[in-house]
């Protein structure tokens, strides 16, 4: 019996939850495959950063979260927001720039947010949400709830000054935050080993007195276990935690980047470690998933994505004047006061 199967499923997850994780990961993969197709067909504009290969990290993390917890995300955020609960229907509508999109066509792929589910938004600025997240955690602490915030970011963001300030303040304030670094070994074309000089990330983080753990990001359940510990600690008032998930981006930085700087052998090796295949093997070995169920999940995911794309394509484009709305709460973009009824 291989190690991945020997260890058995986490005791605190039901079969339904495990299957839910598996389905989510497939939904993310499917969403991005379809988004790529329609982007390449010229139907979707802007940038498209895909996270194929990284699905285990957001799904493992968000499985430890509640609906009322928060996440912040990045330019490569489709997986994060689907894992937290975004509906692919409204996501596709956003990619298509429609009124029915999560941001009414104003944000696009890099900026999907759903405040009703604590999805505070993705950002086009690398590291942009890292200093914001401790403020969300501070607000939780000041309001006295037992929510937590998971802050997703890439390895590239660890080189920014905001990252260090965020770690320091979170530690100083002992707020309920889980930093989740999706270390996919590249920041655009820049390799991880040239980001910091011979220094483990967990070591750097631990100097802020934040418990830091490095996990296999190609193992959804390993990510879940680390997240579970961190979330429980945060809810219990134990302050911040840090998870570095070692993972890989199967494709280039964005659609259109061939990724010439990624050695083909390296790409091949990581593809073999695909987290979706791994979880599938585990679930089958543990008797949680039959071949028929597996095929059914694939068919359900396809149907959901098909429906979502049709929904997006048939949704109306926002009227051009919509470009001028949503700038302020109390004023229009020219500074004229808005009536209560006009405030959105």
């Amino acid at each position, binding site marked *: 019996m291989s190690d991945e199967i020997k260890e058995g499923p986490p005791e605190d997850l039901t079969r339904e939850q495990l299957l839910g994780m598996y389905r989510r990961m497939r939904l993310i993969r499917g969403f991005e495959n379809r988004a790529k197709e329609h982007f390449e067909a010229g139907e979707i*504009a*802007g940038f498209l950063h895909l996270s194929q290969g990284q699905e285990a990290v957001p799904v493992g993390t968000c499985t430890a979260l509640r609906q009322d917890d928060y996440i912040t995300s990045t330019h490569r955020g489709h997986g994060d927001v689907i894992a937290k609960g975004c509906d692919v229907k409204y996501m596709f509508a956003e990619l298509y720039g429609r009124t029915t999109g999560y941001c009414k066509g104003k944000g*696009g792929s890099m900026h999907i947010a759903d405040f009703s589910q604590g999805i505070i938004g993705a950002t086009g600025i690398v590291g942009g949400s890292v200093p914001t997240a401790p403020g969300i955690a501070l607000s939780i602490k000041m309001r006295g709830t037992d929510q937590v915030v998971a802050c997703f970011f890439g390895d*590239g963001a660890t080189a920014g000054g905001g990252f260090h300030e965020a770690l320091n303040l979170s530690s100083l304030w002992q707020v309920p935050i889980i930093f989740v670094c999706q270390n996919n070994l590249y920041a655009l074309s820049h390799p991880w080993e040239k980001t910091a000089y011979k220094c483990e990330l967990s070591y750097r983080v631990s100097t802020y007195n934040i418990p830091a753990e490095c996990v296999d990001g190609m193992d959804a359940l390993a990510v879940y276990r680390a997240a579970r510990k961190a979330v429980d600690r945060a809810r219990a008032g134990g302050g911040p935690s840090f998870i570095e998930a070692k993972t890989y981006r199967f494709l280039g930085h964005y659609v259109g980047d061939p990724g010439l700087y990624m050695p083909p052998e390296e790409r091949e090796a990581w593809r073999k470690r695909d987290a979706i295949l791994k979880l599938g093997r585990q679930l089958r070995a543990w008797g949680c998933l039959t071949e028929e169920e597996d095929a059914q999940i694939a068919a359900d995911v396809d149907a959901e994505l098909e429906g979502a794309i049709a929904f997006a394509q048939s949704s109306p484009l926002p009227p051009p004047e919509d470009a001028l709305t949503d700038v302020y709460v109390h004023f229009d973009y020219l500074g004229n006061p808005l009536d209560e009824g006009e405030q959105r």
Partner: protein
Amino acid sequence: MLRDERVFLMGEDIADPFGSAYKVTLGLSPEFGTDRVRQTPISELGFVGAGVGAALTGMRPVVELMYIDFSMLAMDQIVNQAAKIRYMSGGQAEVPLVIRTQGGLGRSSAAHHAQSLEAWFVHLPGMLVAMPSTPYDAKGLLKTAIRLNDPVMFIEHKLLYNTEGPVPEEEYTIPFGVADVKREGTDCTVVATSMTVLKALQAAEMLKKEGISVEVVDPRTLFPLDIETIIQSVRKTSRLIVAHESPERGGFAAEVIAQIADKAFGYIDAPIQRVCAPSVPTPFARHLEDFITADETKIADRVRSLVRGEI
């Protein structure tokens, strides 16, 4: 870089095989080595600051901000250090630093990758600001920027990288503070910057068929600003429109218009107009972005109304 060993590049993803987001440094790292084409982690504050430090002590760095939208991360070094240190040191310091970057609309990049922030830097005492609109100007101005001993924001446009134009192989420079009349005309002056120069030229072409003659003035450097050339132009046309992509409120157009109101009021026969983006963040959806863009149709419509006395 061949001419002056002190010149070096620093920024994100600038080395081959990637060669920078818009391929503007492709081929340089094999030629000059990764010491002089120094690829950094995502540390805008760090590497712009390092550029300031190197410039203060005998080097001539050209630092690349992949998008002008990321200048915010380095703002303290740009504003509080690079632009002020000469003044605050009583003229001891020189900061031969070029911050090379790009901005602008047109690729559905949304509000974190499509801003036009030149007005901020024009407002900043101690900073020079260049915005080329043609390949010829880009080469000549960039060479000058590198040779000047003051800090320069060198702002390119993401859509201009795909344009073509004659560029002599041989050495030439274009001085800062010299505008270029990109097209001569008699009925209306359109001052435009960067990508909007091309749109103003298209508008002029459209209007020519209607018998309206438009003069297009490209300041090329926003500071120092060659207001004299603009004054000479409005003296001839007696009408002025300033067009740019960035939001109208507090934009570069306001500065040009204030100077004209101050120095050439008597030459003007019609209300001075701005054709800019409305003051909103850049929307993602293609047609929303088009809606806010100061394009050739909007410029032509405004010129037409102005010349016909409808405004």
